[in-house]
């Protein structure tokens, strides 16, 4: 009957075989084959033993022994068979709970007449790795120690296991350690975020990020839908995965735009009032007469669709005051005045000539895309460009972590 040795006696009979006296008289061929190989090595094992050894990895040790005795020993032929078990079963482990985690066959082929060739089935025993995820370090240790396994932890000391290696159900020899990574325990509760006014997509994202469940209770209207009410209310602490119900209200207009009104003919104050009510903003066109007179032209044109708050550029022009209705007796006076007019004509002509030689400065906004905003002054005698050029500064941010 084949013998069985523990790890302490692993060399057992082999130690005797490989003693100096024996070794000198025999030709020894030592081959080690992991069982189950389909390679040439595995084929050689099977050929040497007439039959492939049984697969026992994952089986309880007792069951593995029975299987080997039943299926392997009868096929041994001339071989002297035995098996050895490593490592020792730790004292705290129930021996009947040992599981075979690896197996291999060692063949000794000898041509000596007085010694039979030998084969050994080496079995490595250990435990099946438990699922440690979600456990604290101490709980994980309490679980692996009775299994004869160690624990190597890293991460947050008071956290829980979020990752382990090997994975649960893997087979590990006694004495080997399971590596675990611990992180802060996830909160069991969440604060309901404020969803009112948000678009549906943003509300969904907010609820998901908080670890809660999103549910539309009712929806009405068309266009872009936004949350009008929510339950539970924002700021309430609830269990994770709690359902947050929302009521969605559509915006009839969909994407927000406003129509540019016609402001031509209005005074600056009225233009500002009309645009402000839309709401739009007034920008005075520098090519006009500043903020005096009435609106002569505008851009964008009336009826255009623009974003709320956009600028509408308006050029104002001073309208000559209407001549008052006169009742003055022009006919008699005109004759008398004619002489005066003729006499004054020469002087008036000189005055006009001098005035017309004053630089007629006109300002036009520059039309290119340069960041420089400029105003051009043009005339026959003056050509100035007044510009302003912005220079942003990204600045710097400082943090004071503890405010007292």
């Amino acid at each position, binding site marked *: 009957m084949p013998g069985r040795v523990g790890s302490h006696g692993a060399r057992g009979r082999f130690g005797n075989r490989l003693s100096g006296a024996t070794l000198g008289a025999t030709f020894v061929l030592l081959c080690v084959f992991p069982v189950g190989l389909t390679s040439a090595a595995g084929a050689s094992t099977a050929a040497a033993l007439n039959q492939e050894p049984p697969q026992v990895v994952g089986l309880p040790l007792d069951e593995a022994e029975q299987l080997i005795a039943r299926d392997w020993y009868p096929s041994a032929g001339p071989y002297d068979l035995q098996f050895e078990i490593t490592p020792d079963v730790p004292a705290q482990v129930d021996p009947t709970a040992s599981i075979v985690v690896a197996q291999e066959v060692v063949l000794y082929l000898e041509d000596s007449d007085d010694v039979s060739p030998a084969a050994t089935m080496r079995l490595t025993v250990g435990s099946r790795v438990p699922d440690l995820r979600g456990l604290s370090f101490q709980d994980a240790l309490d679980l692996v120690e009775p299994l004869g396994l160690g624990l190597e932890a890293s*991460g*947050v000391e008071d956290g829980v296991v*979020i*990752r382990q290696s090997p994975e649960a159900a893997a087979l590990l020899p006694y004495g080997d350690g399971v590596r675990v*990574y611990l*992180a*802060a325990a*996830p909160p069991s509760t969440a*604060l309901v*975020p*404020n969803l009112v*006014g*948000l*678009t549906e997509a943003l*509300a969904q*994202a*907010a609820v998901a*990020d*908080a670890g809660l469940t999103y549910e539309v209770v009712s929806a009405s209207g068309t266009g872009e839908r936004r949350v009008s009410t929510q339950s539970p209310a*924002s*700021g309430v602490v609830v269990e994770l995965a709690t359902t947050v119900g929302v009521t969605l209200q559509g915006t009839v207009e969909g994407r927000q735009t406003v129509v540019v009104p016609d402001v031509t003919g209005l005074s600056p104050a009225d233009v500002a009032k009309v645009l402000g009510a839309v709401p739009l*903003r007034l*920008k*005075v066109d*520098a090519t*006009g*007469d*500043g*903020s005096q007179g009435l609106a002569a032209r505008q851009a964008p044109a009336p009826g255009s669709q623009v974003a709320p*708050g956009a600028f509408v550029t308006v050029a104002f022009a001073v309208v000559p005051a209407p001549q008052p209705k006169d009742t003055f007796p022009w006919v008699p006076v005109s004759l008398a005045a004619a002489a005066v007019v003729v006499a004054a004509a020469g002087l008036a002509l000189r005055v006009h000539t001098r005035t017309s030689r004053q*630089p007629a*400065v006109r*300002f036009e*906004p520059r039309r290119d895309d340069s960041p*420089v*905003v*400029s*105003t051009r*002054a043009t005339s026959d005698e*003056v050509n*100035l*460009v*007044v*510009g*302003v*050029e*912005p*220079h*942003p*500064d*990204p*600045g*710097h*941010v*400082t*943090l*004071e*972590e*503890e*405010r007292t």
Partner: protein
Amino acid sequence: MTVTLVDGPLTARAVLFDGDGGEAAQKLGAGLPTTLTGLDRGALSESARRAMHQDFADVAAGLLDLDLGGVLVTGWCKHAQLRAAAQRTLAAPGSRETVRLAEHRISHTSSPHVDVLLGGTVVTHIKMTLGVDVDVTGLEASVREGRLVSLHSGDAAITVALAVEGAPVARSKPIILRLPIDLALGEGLRLVS
């Protein structure tokens, strides 16, 4: 004043001028230093002066479009507790940590400036100073895979101040931004690279 951030960036200009761009331009135009008004004399007419002031005000107001959400995130990226949580969750895919932060202050300072050119030559240089202080209390934040994914609670008191050439032009009253603003965080904001 309490602001609930719905969508779109909350800017320093909006806080400073209650979101009124027209008012911003008006105040900034009024804040022009006397060095600039010197340009009014000489060949420039009244309409040219007004146009120049308007252009300056528009440009200067644009420089105030500082995204305060970005300021907060930049500050939080420096917070040791959040960075530590980010590192841990980055090392453990699928993990999530909730961090409660003590009261803290995030500040931003920048000095944009505007050059005024006449005939292509810079005739004056107007310096603006923008200061933002955000006092954050009771913040509880979730971090996942190295990213800030949500803010569960907390308040942010925001104060914005603006000076032109060292002279205060506008200072907002503190506004309270009621968190959570997790909806603006999308897939989360990377805290560590």
